[in-house]
């Protein structure tokens, strides 16, 4: 059997276009198109690179409303072999616990892949819970911040991956099957190809799973299965910039800056030294 890979992707509102309504404190989602969570494209690219080297099959899975098919089409356009849409009314309103539960059960049902990829975090929630939670539901090893898959040895059941940390790289040998989260912005996702798009339209490599297929306890999924309560959402008010520009040499600029910051009350003089005022 050849190498099996799966990538979790999330269909998210393009928050770069979402604006906040300061009066109501809610997101203005009107007319905002959804996209594949950008970090997930890193994961897709990482998986496709493994496929470039070792062959095998890459599938994506997403728990989402049916409109996410457009996102699956996008990654299939990049070269992913097939997509799985996990969708059901009872899955709606899920927090990360319920989402990861459904995802892990769907993945189990489909058959555990050798490598299960995720993005680092999403642009609309950024919890970074899902990969770790899926790994623990499935009792699999989990490596994150991965920017390169160095080696995959299916016969001996291991992979070597590189983790990109702030100041160093770390190489990890991990047992297969393994869950891997791609480091944010670590890849350049390949462009969509016309021939792959045509394959999508011709072959419709798409599978839908509902709770009829999964048979999960309704108390463990969706809103009912979500213990998290969002108590309050607020936003960071934008601080109007003063846009002052100083032209001169660095020494003078530093003096000028200190003076300005002191005038603003940001720097305070204590015992003959400048200190940042603690609010």
């Amino acid at each position, binding site marked *: 059997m050849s190498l099996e890979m799966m990538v979790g992707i999330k269909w998210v509102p393009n928050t770069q276009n979402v604006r906040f309504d300061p009066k109501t404190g809610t997101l203005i989602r009107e007319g905002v198109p959804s996209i594949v969570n950008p970090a997930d494209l890193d994961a897709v690219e990482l998986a496709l690179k493994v496929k470039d080297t070792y062959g095998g099959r890459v599938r994506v899975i997403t728990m989402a409303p049916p409109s996410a098919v457009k996102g699956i089409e996008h990654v299939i356009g990049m070269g992913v072999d097939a997509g799985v849409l996990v969708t059901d009314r009872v899955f709606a309103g899920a927090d990360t616990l319920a989402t990861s539960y459904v995802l892990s059960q769907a993945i189990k049902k489909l058959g555990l892949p050798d490598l299960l990829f995720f993005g680092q975090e999403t642009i609309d929630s950024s919890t970074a819970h899902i990969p770790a939670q899926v790994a623990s539901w499935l009792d699999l090893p989990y490596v994150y911040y991965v920017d390169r898959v160095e080696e995959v040895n299916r016969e001996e059941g291991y992979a070597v991956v590189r983790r990109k940390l702030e100041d160093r790289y770390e190489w990890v040998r991990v047992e297969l099957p393994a869950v891997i989260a791609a480091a944010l912005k670590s890849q350049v996702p390949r462009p969509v190809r016309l021939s792959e798009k*045509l394959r999508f339209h011709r072959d419709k490599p798409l599978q839908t799973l509902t709770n009829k297929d999964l048979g999960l306890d309704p108390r463990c999924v969706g809103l009912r299965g979500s213990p998290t309560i969002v108590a309050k959402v607020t936003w960071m008010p934008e601080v109007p910039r003063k846009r002052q520009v100083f032209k001169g040499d660095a020494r003078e600029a530093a003096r000028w800056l200190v003076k300005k910051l002191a005038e603003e009350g940001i720097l305070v003089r204590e015992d003959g030294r400048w200190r940042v005022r603690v609010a």
Partner: protein
Amino acid sequence: MGQSAEFDAIVVGAGPAGATAAYHLAKRGFNVLLVERGRGAGSKQVFGGRIYAEPLREVFDDLDKAPIHRWVRRERFTILDGDRELTLDFRAGASTSFTAYLTQFTQWIAQKAVDAGAVLADEVRVDGLWLDGGRVRGIVAGPDRVAARVVIVAEGVNRLLLERAGFVHRASPRELALGVKEVIKLDKKTIEERFGLEEGEGLAWVLLGEVTDFIPGGAFVYTNRDTLSVGLVVHLGGAYQLLRDQVHVLAERLRTHPRLSRFFEGGDIMEYSAHMTIEDSVGYMPEHFAYDGMVIVGDAAGLLLNTGLTIRGVDYAAYSGYLAAKGVERALSEGDASAEALRRHYEVPLRESFIYRDLMRHRGASYAMKNPRMFREYPRVALDTLEEIYTLGRETPLPHEALARALSRNRVGFAEFALRMLKVVMSL
């Protein structure tokens, strides 16, 4: 080289022209691929505009189901200069045009194409026409080549494919204008109150003079359901570079103009976009609208009429797409996609249509409109004349005295003025 698939027709560009061509071919049972570089059809269209309905009734039998915002009944024309303003306000007896978001309108057409069986491949940029001894055999996109019996080029005004393949010359700045548009959100009621509109009624407003810095061109305001499309179109002439950097300043000035800002007050700017448009349609047209294995539709074919008071591009685009679909159907059913067959079945009907005839008829007027004096001196003559007539001291001038003084103040000869005005009036 990637795999290749055979299509009856490949349409490049899912704007109104391409989407319509794809729809009508798919509806007639052809195997159609519609390729669009943007995310979804219509995503690259400049938001908000006014579309003329009559030609579209022949193209879409369910036009009333289209995402129409308001039927335009009010036409307004204004000349602005300092704190002087001349406005002509006209309420038509019936409406023949509607406002819409071009994006939504194009998506509506593309959805019909998909429902009729066309394959829409978005997020794919076509890099070139696949040429085989002068005959167009298909398209090239990245490493992939896909063959088709006919390629319909609907790439819009920025026609790189046609240029690269040598079918058209590189556009000169004289043939083009630059348009910018902002979409400003206001609620429905406020729009109707501010512009004096009945419920659901639309306004199209053209402004000249100071608002375009007296650069040839005009500004416009269209009322959508709960937004305004506000923008301007400036002829590029020689000043291309200058304008490219300046045009957003002009848009800002329009929005904050002391005589206009009250219309936009409190509105949020939802979109800003800039896009090229055709100024000299006849100069911009390709020599032919059909070649071996290829037809050209919409803006790419130079089919846009900007009279200064009205602009027609979307209905022309859709109608030409419709004519192309009918022509391609005939040619393919004869099993002949040669230039000759495609010209017989598409180019000839296009040249006989209202589109081509009007473009030719308006050619002279378009030259008249290009005179920079049209945008500075002549508007001022009108304002000065009115000022003479209305701003009375002791003396009450006769109308011709008022006009004569206004002419001499603006250094415009009477004969020149009379001739120009005659030309413009005749062209309307």
